[in-house]
């Protein structure tokens, strides 16, 4: 069928070449102009699996207030300057951050009401539970009360007593210690070592201040992230010369990643273009070869629009692949160009078209395999790549010959470099022996390869951002990552009540205080009412009188007045059940623990992101519906499990497609298996070399290797076909140039700073280089040893 229809179509296009070329030119100009208005997607979500836990965690992180915060750390660089100067700079910057990009700035806590909010007699009755009261009960005895009274007296001798002694009047037992136990985990929940001074967050060394800025800009909106980053930098430039600022924000990562990817694509495109041009112009010395070079670019431009019509906004990562795909797809034009330069006749052209079509088919199928993945980004990648390859195939077979035959060109005089390469003989047995040994070694090494499921390592943010984060961690701590336990409810009170129950349950599982919950310092209204009632009963059951008596007896040795502790006893029952003061510290702290999105309240609790905690708390999530855990490590583990499952499906499918296509092409198992040698070599050596250099596999380089399988199998097909049919249409040089262009295309990605692109380039270069070497050394040797019909002629 191919033999029948291809010549007809080929002739038809030739007869209408002006129309065809005009249409191609017009469509390319329109598509090229349209690129200016095309928008791309810069986030990695598309590349994440649709696993329920992962999706929920990612949604949570996206929706949470954790992701709409920008943290700024200001540093005094001049030793002569004081905290006062620093605070003035903080206030200046805070005042300059205004809507619409910045909606709220928190530079510290409003301390004016702190004393009232956390006063022993107002706050303690609401938050102290049964165990706390039992602890208090154990202190109401002569020995303890005597020790405490003496402690209060001794405190009055110390310098700090100038301000503090009178506070003991309302707290003779030191109930503030119990309150502290409720509050001490708060800084840990922030993950930072923060002090508060003059209403400002300040580091322990007093040289750094922190401010938290809220923004409505979604972290995934790359355009607005850029605006936010620029606006922030402008404001920071207005700070005094003795203050520097480090900005910590996911928004900067988004903006930076986009910048890095764009730069990488530009650099890779320039390197690949220069390399292609040098290769072709130096080797062929024919300006017409530029048409070969242009074909993949035209295909990429067309494919972007066609793919976007089906998939919407394309991912930058997918476009990044375009550079590599350009390298891959250039093969077809190259084969056609060389064959035409060598004066291939119609029959040879049909055979060549068959080879090129099957090459393109193997490549397209290697991308098609990605449709079996559940990851949406892979589908987008598959569509875009298949379109690129298909368009390249069509243009190579039908448009390129039109441009080449526009004017008469000289045929290549024989013998050429390709002929010399073709006639060169590697020692067959030695070549095969070395290949077998090396492949066996690679196979052995591959057993120790590791897999890195940490998607954060694919983040390509610029060094400045990462250095700022490192400085931030050095100043403010927060090295240990926090996981989040989420409790949901239809109303705030419902969620808080459930959170109280969860907190009690967790306190039995995690006993070392590593679990920080809102329930510990501000429980639900119902719980606070219960606590107040319990507090009142506690003191009315005779304990107030008992304590009064013990204090009277103990204080006789000191000059305490009769009314020394009257504020405590008078205020025992004056507490109220209030909502948190909206301007107070509790309300501000609550912001970190409560989310309200889409009519649902979520209460967050924090704990170290360690597996044993995740395991222990997973049991609690099963007991309480509407609760779940968001853990970076758990996401990584799910990702690893999902990827492993996908690879177990995709890799065999890719191999199966290639094997089937090889057999369909040759209809002969012996030759089909020989043609598969580069594929086996590429895959085994890739994993072996990665293991040898201790470079872990990841979701990106595995997919790149699977995709490359469709490319390197072409080398095997071409070489086996050449030797079987004795085509002499330059297949050896075509395969060599094809490999060179492929390696250039993907090798250009080795100059990328974006880890995902670099990882892709590395995988493709290893696979292609090893696949090519085996195709030019091992396949001819195998053909000669196994007696493949090398002497068969094209007439067969």
């Amino acid at each position, binding site marked *: 069928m191919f033999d029948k229809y291809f010549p007809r179509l080929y002739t038809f296009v030739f007869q209408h070449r002006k129309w065809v070329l005009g249409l191609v030119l017009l469509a390319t100009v329109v598509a090229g102009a349209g690129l200016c208005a095309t928008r791309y997607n810069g986030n990695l979500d598309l590349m994440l699996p649709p696993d329920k836990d992962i999706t929920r965690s990612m949604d949570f992180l996206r929706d949470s207030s954790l992701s709409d915060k920008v943290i700024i750390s200001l540093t005094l660089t001049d030793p002569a300057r004081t*905290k*006062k100067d620093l*605070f003035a700079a903080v206030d200046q910057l805070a005042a300059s951050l205004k809507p619409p990009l910045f909606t709220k700035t928190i530079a510290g*806590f409003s*301390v*004016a009401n*702190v*004393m009232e909010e*956390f*006063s022993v007699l107002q706050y303690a009755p609401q938050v102290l539970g049964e165990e706390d009261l039992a602890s208090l009960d154990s202190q109401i005895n002569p020995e303890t009360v005597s020790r405490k009274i*003496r402690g*209060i007296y*001794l405190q*009055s*001798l*110390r*310098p*700090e*007593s*100038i*301000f*503090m*002694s*009178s*506070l*003991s*009047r309302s707290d003779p037992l*030191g109930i*503030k*210690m119990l*309150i*502290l136990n409720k*509050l*001490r985990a708060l800084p840990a929940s922030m993950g930072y070592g923060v*002090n*508060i*001074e*003059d*209403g400002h967050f300040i580091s*322990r*060394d*007093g040289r750094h201040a922190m401010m938290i800025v809220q923004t409505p800009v979604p972290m995934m909106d790359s355009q607005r992230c850029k605006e936010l980053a620029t606006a922030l930098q402008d404001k920071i430039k207005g700070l005094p010369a003795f203050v520097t600022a480090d900005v910590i924000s996911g928004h900067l990562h988004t903006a930076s990643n986009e910048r890095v990817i764009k730069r990488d694509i530009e650099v890779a495109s320039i390197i690949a273009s220069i390399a292609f041009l040098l290769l072709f112009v130096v080797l062929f010395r024919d300006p017409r070869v530029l048409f070969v070079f242009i074909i993949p670019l035209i295909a990429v431009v067309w494919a972007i629009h066609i793919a976007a019509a089906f998939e919407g906004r394309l991912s930058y990562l997918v476009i990044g692949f375009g550079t590599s795909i350009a390298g891959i797809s250039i093969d077809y034009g190259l084969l056609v160009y060389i064959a035409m330069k060598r004066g291939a006749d119609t029959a040879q052209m049909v055979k060549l078209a068959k080879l090129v079509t099957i090459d393109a088919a193997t490549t397209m199928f290697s991308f098609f395999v990605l449709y079996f993945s559940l990851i949406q980004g892979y589908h987008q990648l598959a569509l875009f790549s298949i379109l690129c390859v298909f368009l390249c195939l069509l243009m190579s077979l039908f448009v390129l010959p039109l441009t080449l035959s526009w004017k008469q060109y000289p045929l290549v005089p024989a013998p050429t470099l390709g002929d010399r390469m073709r006639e060169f003989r590697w020692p067959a047995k030695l070549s095969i022996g070395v290949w077998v040994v090396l492949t066996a070694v690679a196979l052995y090494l591959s057993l120790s390869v590791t897999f890195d499921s940490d998607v954060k390592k694919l983040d390509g943010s610029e060094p400045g951002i990462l250095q700022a984060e490192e400085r931030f961690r050095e100043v403010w701590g927060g090295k240990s990552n926090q996981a989040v336990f989420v409790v949901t409810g239809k109303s705030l009170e419902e969620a808080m009540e459930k959170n109280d129950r969860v907190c009690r349950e967790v306190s039995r599982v995690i006993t070392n205080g590593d679990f920080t919950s809102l329930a510990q310092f501000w429980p639900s209204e119902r719980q606070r009412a219960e606590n107040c009632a319990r507090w009142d009963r506690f003191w009315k059951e005779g304990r107030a009188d008992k304590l009064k008596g013990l204090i009277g007896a103990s204080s006789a040795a*000191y*000059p*305490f*007045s*009769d*009314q*020394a*502790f009257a504020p405590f006893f008078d205020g025992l029952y004056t507490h109220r059940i209030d909502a948190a003061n909206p301007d107070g510290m509790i309300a501000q702290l609550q912001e970190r623990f409560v989310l309200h999105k889409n009519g649902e309240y979520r209460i967050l609790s924090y704990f170290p992101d360690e597996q044993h905690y995740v395991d222990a708390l997973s049991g609690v999530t099963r007991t309480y519906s509407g609760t779940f855990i968001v853990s970076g490590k758990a996401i990584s583990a799910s990702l690893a499990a999902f990827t492993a499952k996908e690879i177990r499906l995709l890799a065999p499918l890719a191999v199966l497609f290639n094997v089937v296509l090889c057999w369909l092409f040759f209809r002969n198992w012996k030759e089909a298996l020989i043609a598969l040698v580069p594929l086996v070599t590429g895959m085994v050596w890739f994993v072996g070399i990665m293991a040898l250099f201790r470079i872990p596999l990841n979701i990106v380089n595995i997919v790149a290797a699977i995709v490359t399988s469709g490319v390197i199998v072409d080398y095997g097909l071409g070489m086996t076909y050449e030797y079987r049919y004795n085509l002499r249409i330059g297949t050896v040089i075509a395969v060599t140039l094809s490999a060179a262009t492929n390696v250039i295309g993907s090798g250009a990605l080795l100059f990328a700073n974006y880890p995902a692109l670099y990882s892709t380039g590395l995988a493709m270069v290893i696979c292609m280089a090893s696949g090519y070497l085996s195709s030019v050394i091992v396949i001819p040797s195998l053909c000669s040893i196994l007696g493949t019909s090398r002497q068969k002629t094209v007439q067969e």
Partner: protein
Amino acid sequence: MIMYWRIGMRVVFSMILCVIVGAGLAFGAETSKGGTPGQADLRELLNTIGKRVSEFKTLKTDFTQEKKMAMFKQKLVLKGRIYLQKPNKIAWHVDSPLRYSVLITDKLIRQWDEDTNQVQEISLTKNPVFQNVLGQLTVWFSGEYGSLLDGNTVRLVKRAPLVIEFTPRENNPAKKVIKNITLTFRDDQKYLQQIRIQELSGDVTTIHFMNTLLNAPLNSSSFEVKGRV
């Protein structure tokens, strides 16, 4: 015990001191703008006095601290000595009614009392309370009075001897606790004669400085806590 003390300090920090001890720092919250000529004169006066007072490297003084507190039926009178070496080294020794000593430097706090007869040493970076106390003591004892003008209404009570009263403004967190702080200077205006802190609760603390020697040689034993008193 140390842990207990640390916890106590943190409680105070979390709940109270950010208000109270922060008072002096809050004084610097917002510089008064467009003040009256009187305030401008006072700023000038404070700066002049501050410059005069701060012209020393070391300080040695006896003190008597009187506390008139509702908690005690009579005035609590402490007697002791203060040794100060700029920029950040202060020893506070109480001789009566109980012996107590504390050394505060820019890095650590070392204290001793006869009750426990043990020396406790704590890193200052972990104790913002003492950091702030040190800051306050530095302001008062070193003569950096200019900074007190911010966040406080300043009133010249008397010229001879010079008496200046600081009253926290509404936006000053100290307003919730402190009614006013009054500084009385020596006749030569080279150092303080008295500091009086009046709280809203009615408690009053007065520190009298006596036998004050500026730039007197201090040996290391002045800053020892155990056995010094």
